[in-house]
């Protein structure tokens, strides 16, 4: 279904700033609807093979709407993030309204509503990892990727680092997820070696 690790598409993080929406509690005051803006003319995602893939999915569920999460994953795999026009396209192919789709997109934290770096790094800092030094891993990642802060993209467009809640690998503290690669037992010392593998 949606396991491809490739993160293609034209958009790279163009200084998306603190991309918001990934960490909630400290984000009060950000204006609503803080959605990234698409700069290039929109090209449809659901054409050719992608459309065929979606149509195969339709046969697995009794409603088209049930394909919303998988369809959004496809958009993100193609484009790296989910723009407003993409929301419109998904709504159209599934017979939903853009508002409904946007309500869903903003509920799930793994969907990006802003462009992100070529490699998207998620670090678990919830309690089990936290007591095992996850915050030090975060610091090392920020320092070595050049990302100014959590949620921001590095100036070279290579990385975006965010803190996430429990990745479900607490016995392998600290786990990080780079794109679709799940890496266990990360320590600050290992960060440099890991980053080297991502251009």
């Amino acid at each position, binding site marked *: 279904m949606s396991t491809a690790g490739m993160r293609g598409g034209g958009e790279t993080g163009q200084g998306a700033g603190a991309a918001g929406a990934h960490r909630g509690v400290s984000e*009060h*005051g950000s204006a*609503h*609807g803080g959605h990234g803006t698409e700069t290039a003319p929109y090209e449809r995602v659901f054409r050719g093979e992608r459309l065929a893939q979606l149509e195969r999915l339709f046969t697995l569920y009794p409603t088209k709407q049930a394909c919303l999460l998988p369809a959004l994953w496809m958009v993100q795999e193609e484009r790296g993030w989910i723009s407003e026009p993409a929301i419109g396209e998904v709504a159209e192919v599934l017979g939903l*309204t853009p*508002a*409904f789709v946007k309500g869903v997109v903003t*509920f799930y934290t793994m969907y990006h509503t802003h462009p992100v770096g070529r490699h998207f790094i998620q670090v678990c800092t919830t309690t089990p990892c936290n007591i095992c030094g996850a915050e030090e891993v975060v610091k090392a990642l920020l320092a070595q990727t050049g990302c100014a802060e959590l949620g921001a993209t590095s100036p070279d467009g290579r990385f975006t680092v965010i803190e996430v809640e429990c990745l479900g690998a607490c016995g392998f503290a600290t786990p990080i997820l780079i794109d679709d690669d799940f890496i266990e037992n990360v320590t600050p010392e290992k960060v440099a070696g890991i980053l080297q593998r991502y251009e």
Partner: protein
Amino acid sequence: MADELVTVTIDGAPVSVPKGTTIIEAAKQAGILVPHYCYHPSLPSPAVCRMCLVEVEKAPKLMPACVTQVAEGQVVRVDSDKAKKAREGVLELLLINHPLDCPICDQAGECELQDYVFQEGRAGTRYSDYAKRYSPVEDFGPDVLYVPNRCILCTRCVRFMEDVADEPVLNVSERGDRAYIGISPDQRLDHPWAGNVVDLCPVGSLISKDFLHKARAWELDKTASVCPGCTQGCNISIDTRDDVVVRLRPRPNLEVNRHFICDYGRMNYRWMNRGDRVEAPLVRESGRHVATDWDTALDRLGQLVRGMSGSAVILASGRASTESLGLVRLMLNRLSVTAAVQVPLGDEAPLAGIPDLALRRERAPNLAGAEILGYRPDWAAGLSQVPAAGLIVVLDADLSDAEQAIIAAAPGTVVVLGTVWPEGLKNAELVLPITNMAEEHGTYVNRDRRIQRYSQAKSQPGMARPAWWVAGEVLGGPGPSPSAPATAAQAFELLGTRWPAFAGLTHSDIGYTGRLLDGSRDPSAESQRVDMGVV
């Protein structure tokens, strides 16, 4: 099954309700309003505000009254310490980020947050160390602004658009305390029934641009009325401030419009406040119209009517009351009358989620009443009789220049009973000032032949009188006429003598939720007494 009754005790009061009734509705029937926000009788219940938690004997936890169905012998406590503490807790949390801007909020005075906090909230806040959440006001649609800071996320608006309007343009965006009501940037809240979200919003978060800062809720006088916008006959409240209509709002009637009105109807009130009204009877003397008193004007009208023979034409507004249409018709009883009622047409706009509720094409609230009284909606046919008629009565019809020209050229006598004087009718023998529907009591019959009463919401300008009064005085004969009807109710009772559909009915029979004509004793009338319409 609906007839199977279940008896429960709510705050000590026993009440029997049909099986399947929720605690919140059962409590209403016991005269107890369980505080609530997300629940609304015309929307599906999500049970998210958690304000209606009540204590149910033997249940381990407090139960949401809005979705918990009654069970035989159940003992419910709304006023228990546990339930009150839970409500106090909800209110405290709803207020932590609330701007407390009641002094500039249109909802103040009719705000359920304000009311319940006053009733049972904490006196002070414990959320004193932090800056409040702030988000700017958003423009949602032609008449709706969203003030996120006041929002309590009850989601009534989202559910209305999704489940009732069937056009889900609103959503809950984000989650946790970052959540807010969202709308897509390329969508507008411009559904023909969208304005209802303003009424549904229990706080001042969704507000009407039209009503923005127009009045404080406590300055308003509210009058039960019927929407004059179309043949649907939605029940409304006309809200006035200092005798000026400032807004129309839906008045619940489960049989007609549940809790809703359309935006066309909602905005269709400015004419009620028109300033260019005829304020005194005008009689034509030597080619000029001069103001006079009612005695003079009525004598003149009486002479005209009694002295006339042959044919007459009545050109009536579709907004004229049953009483006025009927008595004007009776006044011309001796003549051969062609009566036409004016029915402007527009687009039909149904409200998808409510059966038989729509803004109707026929924009005439009393079309059905007029037809019972012998008026025909064939306007052209009525106009075609004008040149041959001895008497032409214009009953507040809205005449185009061409129509006025036809009437002005007619050899017959022209009498205008109007809120305004159609200026082209220089030949009018009499121009008699009448009230508009907001200025009188009366009835309309809607498309389902439901007769419904409306009440006077503002005073009439100058010497204007209801048209039925004018006709009634003439019917009563020359000079002082004690037999003439003095009230709309009396005028209505005269109709039954001529038109069987109204026989035996009185205004008080009709009540404020209406009654189906044709003798069918409407079972809904009873159920409406225990007002499920209460929000």
